[in-house]
């Protein structure tokens, strides 16, 4: 068996049906778990982190059995893991590969950087408009502050 085959077997074969999220930056893995609210589901979840990756050095991987995320849900991780790969598995086969795309508008996930913003002082969910995807620039539609990638603070 060649090495590539072994690797593939380790990552995918265990999952009969479900979703594999691969190529997550190792330091963002638990944020992805949080954003997808995986701690609240009863499905079988397998998490690997600090795995060797040719492309990334180290990476994280998440496998969720019998769960097929909607694009809308999965795109929420675009802010922190824009290059993650999503494989949908059915009957041990990769039946669909999805690319994560950052939506033009989204709710929650990050905190507005402006402490005087209404979103940081009222019980409410913040929302953002994506002004630029690369480099990442968000705009809070309430206080109208622009937020750059290096300023991002997750909720």
């Amino acid at each position, binding site marked *: 068996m060649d090495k590539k085959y072994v690797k593939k077997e380790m990552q995918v074969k265990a999952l009969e049906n479900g979703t594999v999220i691969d190529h997550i930056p190792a330091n963002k893995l638990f944020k992805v778990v949080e954003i997808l609210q995986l701690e609240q589901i009863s499905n079988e979840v397998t998490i690997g982190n600090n795995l060797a990756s040719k492309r990334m050095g180290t990476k994280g991987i998440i496998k969720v059995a019998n769960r097929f995320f909607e694009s809308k849900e999965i795109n929420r991780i675009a802010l922190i893991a824009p290059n993650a790969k999503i494989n949908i598995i059915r009957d041990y086969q990769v039946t669909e590969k999805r690319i994560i795309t950052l939506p033009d508008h989204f709710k929650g996930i990050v905190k507005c950087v*402006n402490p*005087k*913003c*209404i*979103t940081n*002082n*009222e*019980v*409410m969910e913040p929302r953002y408009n994506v002004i630029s995807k690369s480099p990442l620039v968000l705009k*809070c*539609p*309430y*206080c*109208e*502050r*622009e937020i750059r990638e290096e300023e991002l603070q997750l909720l």
Partner: protein
Amino acid sequence: MSYPSLVSIADYSKEQMLHILELAAGFESNPNQNILQGKVAATLFFEPSTRTRLSFETAINRLGGRVIGFSDAATSSSTKGETLRDTIKMVSNYADIIIMRHFLEGAARYATEVTDIPIINAGDGANQHPTQTMLDLYSIQKTQGRLDNLKVVMVGDLKYGRTVHSLLMALKYFSPVFYFIAPEELLMPNEYKLICRENNIPYYENSNFEPEIIEQADILYMTRIQRERFTDLVEYEKVKNVYILHNHMLDKSKNNLRILHPLPRVNEISQDVDDNPKAYYFEQARNGLYVRQAIISHALGLV
């Protein structure tokens, strides 16, 4: 249907701005009308601003409307921990329109999301104060006879000064030329210079406030430099007296030049300028009345 609330100057298109200015001119020639008869306006000032509140309340009273509200957060239920959402929902039961000033940025935008009645933003922290911008625009049009192709010199705190940012956003439709005169620490932010470039608007930056620049100007927009904006107080002491307008600096200025200031001023316009016919800041404040009459009647769909 057009969006009846006014939260940010960017909510108005060029056409809507021109329409409001036209309506305001009508109110200036006839400020006492009964168009708001039977209407109740709420003025919710979570942060006190007597000047702005009196201007709005006069506008409503002269149009025959009635006013309810509070003038600072200490007398409002928000001190008892009530959320903004609940206050807005409660007041929406009583009033036809809400005029609000809040110390938090984005408060007025959020208010539009929890009620169906129109919200007029009378200032949300350092963010927006669109009725000020409309009165600035009205003052410019009234004194110059036009809005197009004007040379506008902005002086003072261009970094944090929301009035100059909003004025820039409003004037971008009218092919201006801008001169930004500010100390190193308070320069016009890049996002606004980018907007100028995107709209092919020439701008010049200078940290010296010189009569040669004033000589070119049609509008000289002065702002206050606040000590609390400086991290380095030595720097503040250095610049605090550099951006002051004295009457002699206007000697060679154009006849049509008018000096604007959002008020209150501290010392950035010397008192000897007040008697110069080019000083316009007190009339400018009065124009706020007509512009607010126009904005309120428009938001209620009455004009």
